[in-house]
């Protein structure tokens, strides 16, 4: 890991700037989801454990160089659950991705975001003499 990574965690303390008050309240008791992230020649894939999150309560956004994943677990706040009421995490991307082809889905509480790399970012095979 280092500057060559395709992304890094974004723990910018300004994170709540510009966020509506309601949204901030809603983030109480949110957890930071564990992730597996891998990169291939053509894409980067983020898998995040977000148990309890349904598709309709999921938000995945890419703004400039920042990928934000957020999901609410329905019913947890109402029952004052000790388990996370939702999940939130931000990543700073260091690679250019093909924004139009990014796709995300959640299944069984596991979020999967596929970020295809922009053509210019794909590594080139260099023949070695």
């Amino acid at each position, binding site marked *: *890991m280092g500057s060559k990574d395709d992304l890094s965690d974004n723990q910018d303390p300004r994170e709540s700037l510009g966020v509506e008050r309601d949204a901030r309240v809603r983030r109480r008791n949110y957890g930071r989801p564990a*992730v597996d992230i891998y990169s291939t020649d053509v894409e980067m894939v983020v898998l995040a*454990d977000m148990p*309890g999150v349904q598709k309709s309560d999921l938000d995945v956004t890419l703004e400039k160089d920042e990928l934000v994943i957020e999901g609410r677990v329905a019913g947890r706040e109402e029952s004052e659950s000790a388990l996370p009421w939702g999940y939130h995490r931000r990543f700073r991307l260091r690679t250019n991705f093909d924004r139009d082809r990014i796709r995300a889905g959640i299944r069984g509480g596991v979020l999967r975001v596929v970020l295809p790399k922009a053509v210019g970012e794909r590594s080139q095979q260099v023949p070695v003499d």
Partner: protein
Amino acid sequence: MSEEKKTASGRGALAELKQAVTGLFDQVVGLAPDFGFRREFPKHELQVEDDGYQAFVEIPGLRRDEVEVSISGRALSITGERPRFRPPADARMIRSERPSGEFTLAIRLPAEVDAAAVAARVRDGVLEIKLPKPRAGRGRSVDVGADEASRAAEEPSSHERPGPKEDSARMPWEDGPAES
């Protein structure tokens, strides 16, 4: 409502040893320093409800048939294994945080439940186990010594659908809705 973190002795210790061995590989590659994930995973909670308890166990990515739930007296036990994530051959891992390996969870219930009425399902990666109180313990009291006939008369006629009800370890589980 408290989060139970108890590990059963005896059988639990054996399971831990087994897990320690199988978890070695994860440890070597730095996924589970100090076996921490065994305490962290799976996260769970026991909620007290009017008619019993409900246990929630977070098992993202696992299906109902990949976890085993059993109850014996007040001991609720959940075991399973989360397979290690395998990226494509040409992939380079950037983060490896999601826990994997075998897990055993032992939850001591505050009181006995109606073992035959216990039902479990997995929804969005959360195992939900309903643990109803024994009927006599619910709501209005039932006369001690009431015979079977009079007790049956009190039961609502349209009761839960009949099914094979085994009395001990194995439960008649309900499966959650299929996830597409």
